[in-house]
């Protein structure tokens, strides 16, 4: 074999640390948009992703909201799934082994009705092997109890987060709702209570009306807006929070390309999640990782950590 001249490649470092969770790269897939990983089997190598954040998991199974559950809107979509999931026991027995076997960095998103639910979930998952961290959903707009109501009151946020921290040694990421007047005060409350990282933003509460039928399109009336339409809101909130807190941020909201990802990173996010983008391009996460790598090489940036918060004035 003739000696093939290898193209000189600088070793670009994409690895980041998200509040104690070591990620190979900053690109994760958002809870509720990636199922339990196997749904994307043919499109993504799970061990190549920064992390897989699995579907919101509750203590007991939930059947979710009646249809219609989704509606497309300009540059985005509204959803009101209602946390449909088989419960933590089924997750552990049926879905976790697959993710472990594929070598994924696994973050489990948890949701509950009460402070005790969250603590109990954290305790159950604490004993399971192969889980890198928890993401706490205190901001789901589509369920009657818990969810959003926890995420909008700083005192409730503290109580929920403190309860979880007492029940687990796993790193805890608290997912914040954009549906608040002052996201910084909520972020600070979560950090005071021991959050190791924050993720933002969850979906933006929205609504669509069926004009001919003269009624809401979604059976749940309201839904969470996601997709490119919410990106500027998300970038703004990441920026605001990054200036005021010291824990790392997992940024998300409408990311469809590596340039979108870089916006979040420059605004102060340590890592990012791709959500609705997975629905449009099932292989998008891996593509964004490749494009980020190329971007850094082309710009002579050795370590992605150099860019985190670089746009903060």
């Amino acid at each position, binding site marked *: 074999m003739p000696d093939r001249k290898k193209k000189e490649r600088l070793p670009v470092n994409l690895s980041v640390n998200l509040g104690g969770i070591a990620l190979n790269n900053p690109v994760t897939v958002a809870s*509720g*948009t*990636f*199922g339990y990983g196997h*749904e*994307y089997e*043919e*499109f993504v190598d799970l061990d190549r992703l920064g992390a897989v954040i699995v579907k919101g998991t509750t203590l007991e199974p939930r*059947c*979710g*909201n*009646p*249809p*219609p*559950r*989704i*509606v*497309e809107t*300009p*540059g*985005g*979509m509204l*959803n009101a*799934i209602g946390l*449909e999931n088989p419960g933590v026991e089924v997750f552990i027995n049926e879905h976790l082994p697959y993710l472990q076997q594929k070598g994924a960095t696994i973050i489990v998103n948890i949701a509950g009705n009460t402070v005790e639910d969250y603590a109990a979930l954290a305790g159950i998952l604490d004993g399971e092997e192969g889980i890198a961290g928890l993401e706490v959903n205190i901001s789901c707009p589509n369920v009657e109890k818990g969810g959003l109501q926890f995420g909008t009151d700083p005192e409730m946020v503290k109580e929920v987060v403190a309860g979880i921290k007492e029940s687990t040694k796993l790193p805890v990421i608290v997912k914040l709702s954009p549906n608040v007047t002052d996201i910084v005060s909520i972020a600070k409350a979560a950090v005071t209570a021991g959050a190791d990282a924050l993720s933002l933003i969850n979906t933006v509460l929205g609504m669509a009306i069926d004009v001919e039928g003269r009624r809401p399109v979604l059976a749940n009336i309201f839904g969470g807006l996601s*997709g*490119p339409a919410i990106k500027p809101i998300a970038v703004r909130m990441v920026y605001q929070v990054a200036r005021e807190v010291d824990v790392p941020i997992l940024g998300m909201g409408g990311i*469809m390309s590596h340039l979108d990802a870089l916006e979040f990173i420059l605004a102060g996010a340590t890592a990012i999640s791709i959500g*609705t983008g*997975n*629905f*449009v*391009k*099932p*292989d998008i996460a891996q593509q964004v990782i490749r494009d980020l790598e190329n971007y850094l090489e082309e710009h002579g940036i050795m370590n992605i950590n150099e860019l985190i918060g670089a746009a903060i004035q």
Partner: protein
Amino acid sequence: MRKVEQALIIRHREIVPRYFELEFIAPDIARDALPGQFVHIRVTKSLDPLLRRPFGIYNVEKKIGSVTVFYKVVGRGTKILSDFHTAETLDVLGPLGRPFSIPPNLRRAVLVGGGVGIAPLVYLARVLCERKVEVMVLLGGSTSGFLVGRDILKRMGIDHMVSTDDGSEGLRGRVTELLEKIIDRKRFDYIYSCGPEPMMARVTEIAQEYGIDGELSLEEHMACGIGACLGCAKEVVRDGRRSFAKVCTDGPVFKIGEVVFRA
């Protein structure tokens, strides 16, 4: 295996106003596609409209690796799609969903379709005929020109009967009335159906009345198409228990009697 392919359009024509036949080259999808499955198409490279659109597979030519879909322009997405030309490419994900099953001892099948819902039944009819199953296709449409798939069935020599709302061709009335007229003497052992929900609700009643098993193919708005978003929920009854099924991966084909139809 599910794939994303950049598919070259080789034929795209408006058969009657607002009804289009679209054929594209997607060899991997064509190789694996089974009747009842669907493809999920991006109608723009931009981010608006954002989501893919699902289309039932109307025909497959394995030799040339082409897939054909048949659709009606109903909204913004299908309007944009209808402006694509031959030689342009489309981003197509597929084949997706649970296909129709073909029971091993199946001898006589009746296929009942209404409107564009006939599309997936045409591909099914072809495959059933290749497997030497005796097939009768019942087509329902608003008027004579709007009988989806009739030309292709004629060409393939597949038995079919028609009904039209205005009586311009075949039986005047509903395709389910046609089914009731012939079901007694034909001794079908399986019913397949796809079309508007009230039609499939009636097919379900008739099937249950005559004790004939079968399958229905549903249509639903969906985001991912691969079982992740849980957006395309449909109420079903399985083992006596009500639950939500995903039309994209638990369906789009369901057993007759499983689907809960609401008036």
